[in-house]
């Protein structure tokens, strides 16, 4: 089967947006340098001109307002942040202007745009290069917040946003997914409605609602558990954090009676809290056991490798949670996957970017 990397899919989506939509402008710190936002914007300036692909001063807030002004004028801005943490400098424009422009003016304006940002993780990204702030963005009415977990969802989301969507979209990509290879189906380039959630694995024993890289971790954990015990986990890729498919989640938990939420952010007031709210306010009696949440330790991200290892939930934590829920006890006594197994993917990551 053909494969596609996350990086490859995003790169194709950027080229597609520039080629097929002459209104697209692409800007941000580093979009024209030799790194080219981890390769996703390489050569685009040369090909499409420096009027459409350009560097920005270090002025995140103003360049976000700039995107709004350009969007109001019929352009399609793609604004890229090499780290999602930098978007905190753009919160004023994002929250006070962009999210409100259509509503506040009674629908007179449309503000289509895509804001791409990358969540860092591992190899000492530290407290200010690793934050996963989807909960902050998704709290605000008026924007779509997505976290693509695969090449296919990243590609479809970006093409849909660029060609068929009049609203602002904030995307949080994950640095560690960039080198993942995904099986590429023949219908890879079929564009589907992206502002929702997707079931990525069927199973009847436990539901895992996951975001971003935790979807991959959940798939690996589910495959491991299936092999070891025959238990089948159902996995929902939440994907659109701001507009999840609540019915999909409820239906799944109605079937399994058990729920794990695996998120890349902090637990309180975040995705874990939100999914628990959906269940608790809509159909609390579907649960046969308390919800399990896997999220970051409630601290800023430490740089030291040893501490970082404890900071992030991983596949072993997921397997442990599945066993605890399905065997109805904390000390289930089952073998967890070995350190080597867990490390396989992301803990080998190195590199300044």
């Amino acid at each position, binding site marked *: 089967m053909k494969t596609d990397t996350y990086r490859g899919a995003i790169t194709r989506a950027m080229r597609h947006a520039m080629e097929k939509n002459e209104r697209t*402008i692409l800007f941000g710190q580093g979009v024209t340098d030799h790194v080219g936002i981890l390769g996703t914007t390489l050569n685009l300036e040369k090909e499409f001109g420096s*009027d*459409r692909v350009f560097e*920005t*001063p270090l*002025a995140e*807030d*103003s*360049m*976000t*307002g*700039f*995107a*709004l*002004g*350009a*969007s*109001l*004028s*019929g*352009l399609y*801005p793609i604004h890229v942040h090499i780290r999602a943490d930098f978007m905190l400098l753009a919160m*004023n*424009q994002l929250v*006070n*202007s962009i999210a409100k*422009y*259509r*509503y*506040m*003016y*009674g*629908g*007179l*304006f449309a503000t289509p745009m895509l804001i791409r940002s990358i969540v860092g993780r591992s190899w000492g990204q530290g407290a200010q290069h690793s934050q996963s702030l989807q909960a902050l963005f998704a709290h605000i*009415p*008026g*924007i*779509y917040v997505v976290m693509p977990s695969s090449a296919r969802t990243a590609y479809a989301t970006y093409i849909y946003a660029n060609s068929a969507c009049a*609203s*602002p979209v904030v995307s949080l990509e994950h640095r560690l997914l960039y080198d993942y290879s995904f099986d590429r189906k023949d219908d890879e380039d079929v564009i589907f409605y992206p502002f929702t959630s997707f079931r990525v694995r069927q199973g009847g024993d436990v539901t895992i609602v996951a975001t971003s890289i935790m979807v991959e971790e959940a798939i690996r954990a589910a495959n491991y558990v299936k092999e070891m015990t025959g238990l089948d986990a159902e996995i929902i890729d939440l994907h659109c954090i701001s507009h999840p498919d609540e019915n999909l989640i409820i239906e799944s938990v109605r079937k399994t009676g058990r729920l794990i939420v695996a998120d890349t952010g902090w637990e309180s007031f975040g995705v874990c809290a939100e999914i628990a709210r959906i269940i608790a306010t809509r159909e609390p009696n579907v649960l046969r056991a308390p919800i399990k949440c896997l999220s970051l330790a409630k601290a800023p991200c430490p740089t030291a490798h040893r501490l970082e290892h404890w900071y992030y939930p991983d596949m072993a934590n997921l397997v442990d949670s599945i066993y605890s829920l399905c065997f109805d006890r904390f000390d289930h006594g089952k073998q967890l996957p070995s350190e080597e197994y867990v490390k396989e993917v992301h803990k080998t990551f190195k590199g300044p970017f």
Partner: protein
Amino acid sequence: MTVSHKNMLRDALRIRMVEEKIIELYPSDVIQSPVHLSIGQELHTVALMSLLQTTDRVFTTYRSHAAYLAKGGDLNLMFAELYGKQTGIAKGKAGSMHLCHPSTGLMGSSAIVGAVFSHATGAAYADKLKKNGDIVLCLTGEGATEEGTFHECLNFSALKQLPLVYVIENNGLAINIPLECRQSYRLEALARAYQIPYAHIEDSFNIDTIIAAARPLIEQARSASKPAVIEIATYRYKEHVGVSCDHNRKHRDASAITMWEKRDPLIVDRDLDAYRDEITAEILEAVCFAEKSEFPDHDELLKDVY
């Protein structure tokens, strides 16, 4: 006095009378939101807008009434908006602080001080890319220039040579705080640091002075795609927000308002009285339109939100 001068004075008087109507209506609570009046600052707004074309676009602040009317905003839709009615320009969702009128080029009014600098910058970038010969005018108070984004936008608009004119109305007050407590810089020097042409308009009641200073910069923005900064010394007659006077408060010099009023053509030019009846009739019609209009339905609550 030329015909166009008379027209500008008439348009400025119309804005004054609209706001005086708002003052009259305000205690009855038919306008249930904050209003920031432009009284004292109307004439230069009208004069500057007279140098623009309909397709030129304007971004401004919550003190938006003067810019809205001077840029051709519809008076009926404005009063309906202030009344919170479905027929308002933004179906009542904007109110006084967020007037807009895209069909004549008013693209928005922000209550976040300084937010519109970058919106105007983005819009001007689009104009430059499209080579459509349009320019963007960004109208804010001097307090907004204290925000970091002003520096960021001067930098970017100079870097990209954008067709954009920043007009800074310097009324000396940010809410109630005088300029000398807030600013260490002069705007002219700041503009010069970015090699952006700057003009200072000392007399905001003199149409000839305003036009003479602003026209070359606006034309240069249009013909040569260059940004500019225009600073206007002006005076806010009313309190920051609301319809009362506050010149007897400690932050204001009570004698200053008398000096401004003595020179204010909208007060001293008695020839303008000839326009009052027709303007009054137009305002009454707009108020009547607003009063007769319906409030939004419940359906409107969640419309136009993604």
